[in-house]
């Protein structure tokens, strides 16, 4: 019950945060931003024409009126209409979310599956060569810009070796996507039973997924190593060794299980990085996700689209932290008291 109450409390806390985010983005975009009228008016337009365009874009009212109208619309889950695509922003974002999520999940899975064993490997070999190797990898993974890693991987595996497809998006050019069910191409292709298509989608995912995975695994391995080192020095580990348990048992059953808590805490932040980084990663790989949409919105001073995206991303971010808190509660029995 404590769990249910905590979740409810945290969910309610999302509302004021969302309100703050909405307010800040609205004013940041409107007060400081350029005037999109200029983008839509021909240079020789008369003042009347400009005024007409402004009214059409909903920019003629005083600012506070625009703000209230925006809030009222949001309360009905109406994110407004994008100037550039002419579609509802909510629909635009939902259509692009699966692309970003599919890539993000692949990156996260690679990061966890590779990062945790690497962290353990480094910790049990502290101050020996596997440790130095892992520390070098994690340092580079954190210190290198993700977009650069992506470009280098493209340069090696696509341009030089020709092993993997080029950065043209989720499917090779000219290939039609499977009938949409979930929006996740791997799932949709499997539902349609089209394994050729499945393979193509998977191949397109390899390079961006590995790029994202490398940055993720760097952070995961680093935190795992630190937590594991600390765990291995504690009394219960000494007891476990003294009782004659094997090394595997001591490392994984006693050490790793205690070391996992900080790693779980970290995952919320990692999820945030994935959405923030999506903008850069997607522009490298031509990935038609939320990041590309945001970049386009920034280029065109597309207020509604931009605000919608920032709100969307912040909510997902806050939700990721909520999930982490719940996970924490499930893993650590002390928190349930």
């Amino acid at each position, binding site marked *: 019950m404590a769990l249910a109450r905590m979740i409810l409390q945290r969910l309610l806390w999302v509302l004021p*945060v969302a309100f703050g985010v909405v307010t800040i983005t609205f004013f940041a975009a409107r007060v400081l*931003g350029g005037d999109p009228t200029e983008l839509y008016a021909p240079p020789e337009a008369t003042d009347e024409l400009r005024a007409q365009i402004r009214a059409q874009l909903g920019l003629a009212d005083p600012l506070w009126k625009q703000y209230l109208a925006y809030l009222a619309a949001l309360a009905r889950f109406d994110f407004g209409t994008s100037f550039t695509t002419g579609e509802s922003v909510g629909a635009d974002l939902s259509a692009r979310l699966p692309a970003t999520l599919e890539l993000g999940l692949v990156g996260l899975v690679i990061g966890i599956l590779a990062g945790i064993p690497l962290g353990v490997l480094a910790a049990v070999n502290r101050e020996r060569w596997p440790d130095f190797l892992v520390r070098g990898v994690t340092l580079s993974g954190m*210190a290198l*810009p993700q977009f650069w890693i992506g470009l280098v991987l493209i*340069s090696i595996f696509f341009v030089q070796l020709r092993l993997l497809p080029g950065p043209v998006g989720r499917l090779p050019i000219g290939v039609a996507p499977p009938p949409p069910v979930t929006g996740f191409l791997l799932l949709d292709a499997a539902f349609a039973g089209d394994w050729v298509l499945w393979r193509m989608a998977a191949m397109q995912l390899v390079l961006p997924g590995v790029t994202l995975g490398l940055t993720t695994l760097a952070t995961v391995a680093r935190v795992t190593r630190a937590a594991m080192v600390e765990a291995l020095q504690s009394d219960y580990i000494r007891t476990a060794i003294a009782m004659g348990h094997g090394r595997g048992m001591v490392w994984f059953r006693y050490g790793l299980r205690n070391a996992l808590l900080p790693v779980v805490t970290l995952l919320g932040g990692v999820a945030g990085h994935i959405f923030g*980084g999506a*903008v850069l990663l997607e522009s490298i790989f031509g990935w038609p996700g939320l990041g590309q949409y945001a970049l386009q919105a*920034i280029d065109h001073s597309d207020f509604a689209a931009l605000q919608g995206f920032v709100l969307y991303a912040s909510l997902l971010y806050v939700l990721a932290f909520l999930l982490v808190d719940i996970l924490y509660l499930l893993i650590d029995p002390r928190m349930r008291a």
Partner: protein
Amino acid sequence: MKRSAADATLDPAALPAAPPARRRRAPASWSLRIGAGLLLFYAGVALLSLVWTPYDPLAPGMGDGYLPPSREFLLGTDRLGADILSRLMAGARYDLGITLVAVAIALSIGSALGTIAGYFGGVVDTVISRLVEVFQAFPGLLFAMLIVQAVGPGVPNIILVLSFIGIPDYLRLARAEIRSRRAWPYAEAARMVGNTPWLVAFRHLLPNSAGPLLAFTSINAAFVALVTASLGFLGLGLDPNTPEWGSMIARGQDGVMTGEWWVSFFPGLAILGLTGAFYLLGDALSDLTDPRRRR
């Protein structure tokens, strides 16, 4: 001299034996040496680029476009025939300079606000903490992109935006540090001898929190350097001809697809050295200042 007044009121016999004088400082670790050395090297290159670079970093057509690394152009030329080594050297001014100034501003403002919130508590604390929470709901890079686009291009604007997005983190850390130290005996002693709350907070508690704050500053500088490069890569905030490393990677992006890898490759290594140096330095600083990590 307030300290001696306080000492005089205490009976020395009632005090537990003083701990032995603190051991000599730990030998400089490898991460400290490498990190500090690399930073000095970058600073030196940035200064040198003011007076000398092999070629003019801003001028195109120093050689043909896309010349591979050779004796004449050590790191090759880009699409427009500009010398990459010269541009890398000049870029140190932008990436290192922007990062250092932005981090210094964020550290000063953030730790000042955090000290106030942490020491005085109450309504001020609640308001500040809630605001911080809202700002932290934005993924950092995204927020930077949004405001850079809004306030317009230029190095000063980029610095302002980067320091602005950094403030909440410093604030949160300073607040936590000050709160945890507020009730310590030395804070109590400082109050008892008649220091004003502001003096206690800023003269006694804040300097004692400097270790963790500086360690975080170094780690945060790595992040700021990455965001600077990312903004440059996206073409936000800087003229595309600026020899900033992220912009240079963007300029080489087409070359990567046709096999001219060196245009984008070398600026990435330059970024690796800078951010890596900040990470190493941050690690070394937290090892030095956090007794639990000093094993």
